[in-house]
């Protein structure tokens, strides 16, 4: 006993403790629920069997049932569209802003800090604000588009099935852009200035410097941001709850919202778990990309 105690104060035991504690925490708080979720997707679960762990095993029936439902395909497609459009928008605008602030004009860092406001706002609040902005009758977005002549009549962003998903995408781009910008700014400032000077003397113009120095030097940052963006957009729940609730008629429904809806509104826990398992696969892929791109950072 004394030896164990002294090893904790000496070093080796302490090192092991440092590893075991967080691992244990992760296992209990994330690992077990994850495993439980996977197990549930292979069981028949209803309100009455919810309390016990031993439930009838049904094999892949939940999966087969899920894919035979008519709304599954549109919802999967919505999810893909939501993820791709959100990441593309967040990344493009974020990179543009990062490059803009990189020129370091007077007040640049102050203004950049201000942009973070959108990142610290709770998703539900952002959703409520965008509800007003996107409102069909008195929304400020419609007003702007009308006054600039882009549209003739009002668009009912949240209730028109053609626009409802885009309403959430617009809000999500607004929410995630500043995070992209900050990470990309950090990546940009990590590129040594003398590389640009060397490239300039080697005859490269601004565009050539961007393609041959900035982009390749940012490869790991960009990989990490895309991976994080994929994880964050697949997690995005608040905006759907705040703006469209997945409607109308599932036109803006995505898997993460649908999983919650199935489990906790329709009490079909097995289906909810099944959708979650499918999402786990995608998130796992994203995290592999993330880990790989942060490990292979280019250093001079």
């Amino acid at each position, binding site marked *: 006993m004394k030896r164990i105690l002294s090893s904790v104060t000496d070093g080796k035991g302490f090192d092991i403790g440092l590893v075991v504690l967080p691992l244990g925490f992760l296992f209990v708080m994330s690992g077990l629920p994850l495993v439980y979720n996977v197990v549930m997707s292979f069981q028949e679960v209803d309100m009455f069997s919810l309390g016990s762990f031993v439930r009838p095993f049904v094999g892949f029936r939940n999966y087969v049932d899920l894919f035979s439902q008519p709304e599954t395909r549109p919802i999967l497609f919505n999810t893909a569209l939501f993820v791709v459009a959100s990441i593309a928008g967040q990344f493009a605008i974020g990179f543009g802003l990062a490059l803009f602030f990189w020129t370091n004009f007077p007040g640049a860092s102050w203004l950049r800090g201000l942009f973070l406001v959108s990142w610290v706002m709770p998703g539900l609040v952002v959703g409520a604000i965008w509800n007003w902005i996107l409102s069909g009758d008195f929304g400020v977005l419609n007003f702007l588009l009308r006054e600039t002549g882009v549209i003739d009549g009002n668009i009912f962003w949240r209730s028109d099935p053609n626009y409802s998903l885009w309403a959430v995408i617009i809000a999500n781009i607004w929410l995630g852009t500043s995070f992209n910008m900050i990470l990309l700014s950090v990546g940009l400032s990590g590129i*040594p200035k*003398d*590389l640009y*000077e*060397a*490239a*300039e*003397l*080697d*005859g*490269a*113009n601004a565009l*050539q410097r961007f393609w*041959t*120095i900035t982009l*390749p*030097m940012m*490869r790991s940052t960009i990989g990490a941001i895309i991976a994080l963006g994929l994880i964050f957009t697949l997690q995005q729940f608040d905006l759907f709850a705040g703006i469209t609730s997945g409607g109308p008629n599932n036109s803006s429904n995505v898997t993460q919202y649908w999983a919650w809806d199935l489990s906790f509104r329709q009490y079909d826990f097995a289906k909810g778990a099944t959708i979650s398992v499918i999402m786990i696969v995608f998130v796992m892929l994203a995290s592999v990309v993330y880990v790989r791109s942060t490990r292979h950072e*280019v*250093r*001079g």
Partner: protein
Amino acid sequence: MSLQIELNGVNKFYGAFHALKDIHLAIEEGTFVALVGPSGCGKSTLLRSLAGLEKISTGEMKIAGALMNNVPPRKRDVAMVFQSYALYPHMTVEENLTYSLRIRGVKKAEARKAAEEVAATTGLSHLMKRYPRELSGGQRQRVAMSRAIIRHPKAFLFDEPLSNLDAALRVHMRKEIRALHDRLNATSVYVTHDQIEAMTMADHVVVMRDGIIEQQGRPLDLYDRPANKFVAGFIGSPAMNFIPAIVAEDGAHIVLDFGKTEAKLAIGSRLSPGTSLTAGIRPEHIKIVAEGQGAFDVPVGIVESTGSATFITSATQPELTIVETGRGGAKSGDIIGLAIDLAQLHLFDTATGRRIEPQSGRVGIEPPRHLHLAGHAN
């Protein structure tokens, strides 16, 4: 020989800070010029202005006869070797070398051939597929130089390229850079804070301080006839001894002031009596003789020997450093006589620090030699 680089009245301001003050410089084609001075003297600013990385505020800058004031760096056709080397970390050695060619749209096979030729001369052939992070400091240095060579630029600019290498490698690369310069018949501007690098490598040394060119000329001219006290103290190692002095009544002697004691020294020329000045004598120009046999006697303070040379510091105020080749017999506490070659005695005005030229070359003082035609002493 034509002028490759010309600076006329170049000034550079950073806000209120005057970084370069009225710089005049004329560099002939094929010359190796060293810009040397303590940190913050403006030598790097001057080099970066030549590259176009800094914009000069006023004055005229020409490279190969063309006015460069508003020409962007990529159109100046000069190559720079950075202190940090600034190799592109995401490119192999070969890609680093061919970068400038690829930017110019040179065909791949052609660029590759050029890279191989340069790499063969700099000993990089076997490293072409490596990334900069897989190279040693000396190899990176070679890549940085090869990247400059491959372009056949109008001028090479070196920004303290050896300061990140260890001492032995530095001495080796010094010779290599100079040999390369000779082989390419290039025009090089080399910034360093190390006067030994400047003295050994350059044809023409420019000593700078506080944004001013203090003196420029051939290395040995600077050593033999420093224009002022700053240059005298900066060039040469160990540094020159400075002793406050006053011209004696007869005008032909100066009285060296060692605080408690004084020493009278003939200067072999005539100066107005009572003038206060600073006498400068290099440690290697003082000879140790028996007590009473030299110009004056001093007590010995510290004796240090490196084996090949002995450094003797006198127990006077100010201290005198004397370098003797071989192993001298002087011991701490001895009284020794010092013989001073008047030809090697330098006199500086105490107030301005400027060199005082003795009237007409009389006893032992050689007449002023003409400095390098490319520059004139300040």
